[in-house]
């Protein structure tokens, strides 16, 4: 009985001690993009830009296939994945047919233009102008043999995962892996 009371008291104490700064408001979003499919890249970009629109800082870390979104020659040719994506409502066999991915991508881009969604390059310009820091992952750059000059000009730097964690220090910082 005594122990139980003590435990409750400790719990209450720790609850009182937990006073989130600024009512727990988000101050900065650290968004890691590891995928190069169109829908994932857009998701990451919308989240980063949306943060800035709300007065929240945002930084992006491009790693592995996410690097394609900032590779000058590849960023205009990102595709939607038609295979292994049940939400496409397309039989896997069909999704694998030649031209299927290009067709689905074409359809999606058309819909995006209708809702005033910028293309990848323009979106990068918007992010850069909005003050989103853009980092490329050193490890993935080495792995794919990419050079800095292959990348979008607005990239802040090529950094290590350790550097990225240092950037993430502070209160109200949230991290997101896509």
């Amino acid at each position, binding site marked *: 009985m005594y122990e139980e009371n003590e435990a409750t008291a400790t719990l209450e104490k720790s609850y009182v001690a937990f006073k989130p700064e600024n009512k727990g408001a988000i101050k900065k979003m650290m968004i890691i993009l590891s995928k190069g499919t169109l829908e994932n890249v857009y998701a990451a970009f*919308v989240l980063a830009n949306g943060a800035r*629109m709300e*007065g929240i800082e945002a930084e992006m870390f491009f790693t592995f296939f996410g690097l394609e979104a900032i590779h000058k020659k590849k960023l205009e040719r990102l595709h939607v994945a038609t295979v292994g994506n049940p939400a496409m409502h397309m039989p896997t066999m069909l999704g694998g047919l030649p031209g299927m991915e290009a067709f689905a991508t074409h359809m999606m881009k058309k819909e995006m233009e209708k809702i005033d*969604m*910028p293309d990848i390059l323009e979106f990068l310009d918007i992010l850069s102008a*909005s003050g989103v820091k853009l980092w490329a992952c050193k490890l993935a750059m080495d792995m794919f043999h990419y050079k800095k000059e292959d990348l979008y000009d607005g990239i802040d730097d090529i950094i290590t995962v350790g550097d990225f964690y240092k950037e993430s220090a502070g209160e109200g910082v949230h991290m997101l892996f896509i």
Partner: protein
Amino acid sequence: MLINLFKSSLKKQNMERTINGKSITVNEEGYLKDFSQWDDKVGEALAAESGIALTPRHWEVLKYLQNEQKNQVALSIRRVGKSGVVDIKEFYQLFPIAPLKTATKIAGIPKPASCI
């Protein structure tokens, strides 16, 4: 009781405020309900509340936003950036925290429901 709490949180609460002796109605987020209550002085007071001292550049952007609203154009950061009035970088310099939200509030027009 829970249901009542839920109901009251759903109810949009308007508020009466007085700025420079003038009475204005704002919604729960501080946006003006009726643009006819807006004038330059109200704009200046709302800007000061956001920590912004309005310069001629601010006014150009505010007038542009009001004009777009009048023409019922859906506002977004992208559209503002393409307006020719201000680019995105300068928009963020003029209204550093949440530019579109802040600028529309100062301009006395509704908060844009835009994701881009």
